[in-house]
């Protein structure tokens, strides 16, 4: 039986400092710093368990440069269990571990609100001619890209080579409903320049099928093996091949469909013939074709469009749901995902424009095409690129996605709650609740441990199991303890 698909999203935001040449590391630090002065319950990140050079294919890369350790200073954990920090000159929010794709949508939205609040606070402290602006996108149009990464819990026993080969067709084709759209192309070999419209922000940047890199020569499947949990039982699949989405339905489908397919792969139910011959070529070709008619070659020589690949995956998912059930992704959530997946594919088949309230690239293209027509502009007009960027502007008064009538799945009061309250069904509950109860006595935390100041000593509580430390398991324990010392004594060895 597939392991519960505990999942989460880490989003690197674009950032500019208007009015001055302040470097982006400083600007990003100002955001995290501003949020931290308003919220005294945050704590510091504990780096001791980070191993980004461990490769899932079985070796350790020695001289690998780990630049993010330079910004250790501005790295915090929040009471909702999220991580908020500066990474590679971008402010980054990692959602806490979520049990379902719907929960990820909620915590991703909470992350957006945290970024908005931080920006508001930071700007309040600046003189009037200066302003920090943030963007939830992945490309600056000048060859630089930053990521929206997903993480999925998997069983260690599933061979990595099998995961890599079988998840690739989905990563290459899912952009037809989770691509965020982009005006322009940055691929070295591309002859088309500013005027081309792509489905995906990130497709240009993928140069390899598989690899450890995340900042150059990006691979479609990332081999980073840093499980942040019991490595004998689990693997954390770290996915870099996706766009950040403004549409909640797109986020739900991105995470929800991937979780189902990974469960299928773990249970040996992936259709064996559905493997791609040239994925790196395919991801770019699909991205450049908004008519959705471009075909990619499978390993057996057949050719399929991205839509056909997705329909095949959906059919396999339905068979899997019947034979194995969808417990791994939570039955109710899984059924919602299957339904919306089918709706979106049917909509794209008949008329892509019908999906303008759920798919980001469709919403964006509709605005670009409409604006171009209204003002009789050429395809390489700067205003069309400006629309692309401003679609992702985090300021409510400027954001174009906020004006696109995108379908919403979350309620405002749920999002408000998710800013400070952790998910209840994963170890994020333990981390977030400890921080809320004893902010001055939680010295540091990371994904798989919390360090308490227990009075005379510091005490580290390991949390190697993502499905323990839940409200059901430790909720009443927290209620019955006045101090961390009491909690530690009652817990025993680990959460």
């Amino acid at each position: 039986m597939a392991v519960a698909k505990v999942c989460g999203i880490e989003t690197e935001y674009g950032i500019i400092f208007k009015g001055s040449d302040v470097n982006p590391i400083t600007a990003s630090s100002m955001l995290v710093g501003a949020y931290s002065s308003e919220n005294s319950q945050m704590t510091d990140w504990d780096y001791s368990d980070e191993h980004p050079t461990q490769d899932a294919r079985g070796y350790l890369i020695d001289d690998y440069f780990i630049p993010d350790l330079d910004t250790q200073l501005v790295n915090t954990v929040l009471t909702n269990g999220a991580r908020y920090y500066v990474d590679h000159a971008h402010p980054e929010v990692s959602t806490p571990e979520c049990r379902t794709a719907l929960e990820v949508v909620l915590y991703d939205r909470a992350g957006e609100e945290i970024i908005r609040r931080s920006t508001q606070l930071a700007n309040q402290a600046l003189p009037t001619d200066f302003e920090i602006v943030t963007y939830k996108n992945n490309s600056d149009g000048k060859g630089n890209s930053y990521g929206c990464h997903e993480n999925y819990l998997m069983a260690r026993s599933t061979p990595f080579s099998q995961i890599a080969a079988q998840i690739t067709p989905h990563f290459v084709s899912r952009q037809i409903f989770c691509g965020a759209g982009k005006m322009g192309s940055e691929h070295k070999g591309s002859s088309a320049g500013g005027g081309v419209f792509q489905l995906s922000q990130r497709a240009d940047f993928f140069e390899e099928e598989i690899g450890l890199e995340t900042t150059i020569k990006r691979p479609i499947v990332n081999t980073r093996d840093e499980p942040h949990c019991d490595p004998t039982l689990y693997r954390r699949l770290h996915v870099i091949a996706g766009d950040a989405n403004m549409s909640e339905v797109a986020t739900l489908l991105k995470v929800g469909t991937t979780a189902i397919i990974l469960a299928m792969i773990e249970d040996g139910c992936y259709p064996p013939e559905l493997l791609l011959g040239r994925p790196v070529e395919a991801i770019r070709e699909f991205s450049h074709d908004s008519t959705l008619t471009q075909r990619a070659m499978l390993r057996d020589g057949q050719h399929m469009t991205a839509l056909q690949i997705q329909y095949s995956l959906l059919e396999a998912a339905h068979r899997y749901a019947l034979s194995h059930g969808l417990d791994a992704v939570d039955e109710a959530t899984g059924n919602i995902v299957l339904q919306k997946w089918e709706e979106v594919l049917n909509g794209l088949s008949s008329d892509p424009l019908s999906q303008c309230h759920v798919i980001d690239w469709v919403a964006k293209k509709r605005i670009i095409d409409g604006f171009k027509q209204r003002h009789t502009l050429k395809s390489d007009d700067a205003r069309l690129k400006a629309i692309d960027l401003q679609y992702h502007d985090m300021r409510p008064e400027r954001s174009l996605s906020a004006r696109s009538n995108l379908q919403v799945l979350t309620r405002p009061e749920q999002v408000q709650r998710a800013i400070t309250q952790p998910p209840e069904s994963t170890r994020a509950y333990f981390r977030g609740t400890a921080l809320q109860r004893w902010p001055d006595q939680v010295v540091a935390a990371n994904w798989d441990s919390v360090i308490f100041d227990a009075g005379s000593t510091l005490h580290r509580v390991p949390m190697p199991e993502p499905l323990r430390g839940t409200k059901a398991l430790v909720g009443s324990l927290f209620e019955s303890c006045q101090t961390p010392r009491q909690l530690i004594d009652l817990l025993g060895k680990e959460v």
Partner: protein
Amino acid sequence: MTEQIKKPKVVRENTAVADVESGQQNRTTNLKIELDNLLDEIDEVLETNAQEFVKSYVQKGGQ
């Protein structure tokens, strides 16, 4: 010999098709009105110097 009366059936089919078509037309019209309103708003909130904005939007590479 009685002739099969096909007319009423044909009329019903036409009505059904007409219903779908006018429903479709309503949706298309609504989407068009929505787009026009959206473009009006964008004219107001889009960065005033688009060229400068696009040129100065540079990020450091992340992951």
